[in-house]
């Protein structure tokens, strides 16, 4: 991979809060990580999960609860949320990978509905109001994540931003490594030709399950990050619309590309925030993008670029 590209992106990420509204930037990072984690499953294992919001939102609730009600420090909260999502991923994955293709998608969707129900009913979730007023707390018990640094007259939440950015880099790094690992090679083989991978002696289910757990844990990490940024965990985070959105982000950017999901997430989140005034038309626009993507643009824009340049991005 091109070292300069990564360095440029890193620099962009480090400087972004001075140019872009930091909270928005952090939202982008959360969804970029979410989409990248989802893509580990769809793009590199060939499994379409239609219930990934369960991990994203589930972790947000767990992190929020632990930080708010039990006073955990934010880094431990994120860790707990990530582990929880991984565990949940293990349960959902074990059930879902018994089925393939379309059935897999429907089973994950339905299981995610149960998580939605729990998020509505469990005593600590705040029902339809969600878990609100989650404190950002002291990182490692030392650094106040609420601290704003005034730059050119504008107070910027730099401590929080760099914490989130660091988490994003960590998560994205794990995904990148997993894709380019011996494990990732087998995943690609399974995606390309599952019966053949099986006949070569690979226990396909086990690989799928590990990929599922990894993907859900990292999706959970993204959810935990979002919960610290917005200080709330809500039913939106676990709803099937969110599951659909992450599919769209990945599809739009490019399934099975390293940068595609992040770029797709940036585009969708930006669109949503720019188009709040068009009201319900946003749903129509999102739906339209879906249709166009599926019909003419299946590689996504990063994927199409990669094809033009004959490189994998």
């Amino acid at each position, binding site marked *: 991979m091109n070292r300069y590209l990564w360095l440029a992106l890193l620099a962009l990420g480090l400087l972004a809060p001075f140019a872009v509204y930091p909270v928005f930037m952090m939202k982008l990072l959360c969804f970029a990580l979410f989409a990248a984690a989802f893509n580990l499953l769809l793009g590199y294992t060939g499994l379409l999960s239609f219930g990934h919001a369960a991990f994203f939102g589930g972790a947000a609730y767990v992190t929020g609860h632990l930080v708010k009600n039990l006073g955990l420090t934010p880094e431990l909260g994120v860790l707990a949320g990530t582990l929880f999502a991984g565990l949940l991923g293990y349960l959902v994955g074990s059930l879902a990978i018994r089925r393939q293709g379309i059935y897999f998608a429907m089973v994950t969707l339905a299981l995610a509905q149960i998580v939605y129900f729990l998020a509505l009913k469990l005593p600590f979730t705040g029902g339809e109001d969600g878990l609100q007023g989650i404190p950002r707390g002291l990182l490692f018990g030392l650094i106040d994540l609420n601290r704003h640094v005034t730059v050119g007259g504008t107070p910027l939440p730099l401590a929080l931003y760099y914490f989130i950015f660091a988490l994003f880099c960590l998560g994205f790094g*794990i995904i990148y490594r997993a894709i380019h*690992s011996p494990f990732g*090679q*087998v995943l*690609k083989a399974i995606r390309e030709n599952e019966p053949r991978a*099986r*006949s*070569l002696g*690979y226990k396909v289910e086990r690989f799928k399950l590990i990929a599922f757990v990894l993907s859900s844990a990292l999706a959970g990490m993204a959810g935990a990050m979002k919960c610290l940024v917005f200080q709330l965990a809500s039913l939106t985070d676990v709803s099937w619309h969110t599951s659909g959105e992450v599919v769209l982000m990945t599809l739009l950017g490019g399934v099975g590309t390293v940068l595609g999901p992040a770029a797709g997430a940036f585009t969708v989140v930006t669109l949503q925030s720019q188009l709040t005034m068009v009201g319900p038309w946003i749903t129509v626009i999102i739906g339209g993008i879906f249709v166009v993507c599926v019909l003419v643009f299946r590689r996504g824009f990063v994927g199409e670029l990669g094809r033009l340049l004959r490189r994998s991005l």
Partner: protein
Amino acid sequence: MLTENPLADCILETKRLSKEFKGFAAVTDLNLQVQRGHIHALIGPNGAGKTTVFNLLTKFLTPTTGTIHFNGIDITREEPAEIALRGVIRSFQISAVFPGLTPLENVRVALQRATNTSYQFWKSDRCLKQLDDRAMALLESVGLAELSGAITGELAYGRKRALEIATTLALEPKLMLLDEPTQGMGAEDVDRITALVKQASAGRTILMVEHNLKVVETLADRITVLQRGAILAEGSYAEVSQDPQVMEAYMGSAHA
């Protein structure tokens, strides 16, 4: 002749193997014995159950009744991957390659299995580079060395089959199951694959389903003729081709 007792040197044996699909018997009471070191051909008219037998042997299908023994061990209840780990490797009727990977990666995925790194998602795939030499050697042996970096999906059909054999060989199988290795090929490709199979058979056993009787005649030590899921005849090419039942049921129709 390696030995007097055929059972002692039987690498694969099925006893009363049957498979029913909703009342329709695809395979009935099949007693098949494959001798170590042989190239054993499974032939028969369309719908005779050859591919079903393959799927049963590799556990892509679960037998309704009967047992399968490999090297004297009962493998009837094992998973496809476990059977592969024992050294029974199959090919498919439709070419079984990984179209999105390069030929080199295709072979390397097979080599990788023995390295015990396959679950390591935290390691860089650069550690797989050490397998490249062996992968190249295997590609070389099937004449694909100069195409090692191509896009597999865009290779010609015959080359895909060759790649498939290289991938299978990478696993050093004890028993190779080849499902119609020359199906849909031009004469030139057929000759090349025939030679490849011959070459691959050194030191191992091969069970193949094949339609092309010329290939069967060239390669097979022993032939089992299936009809409607049951054995019709068995023996060398010379024996089988003289069998009047076979002539009628299969050869007749095949040559007609």
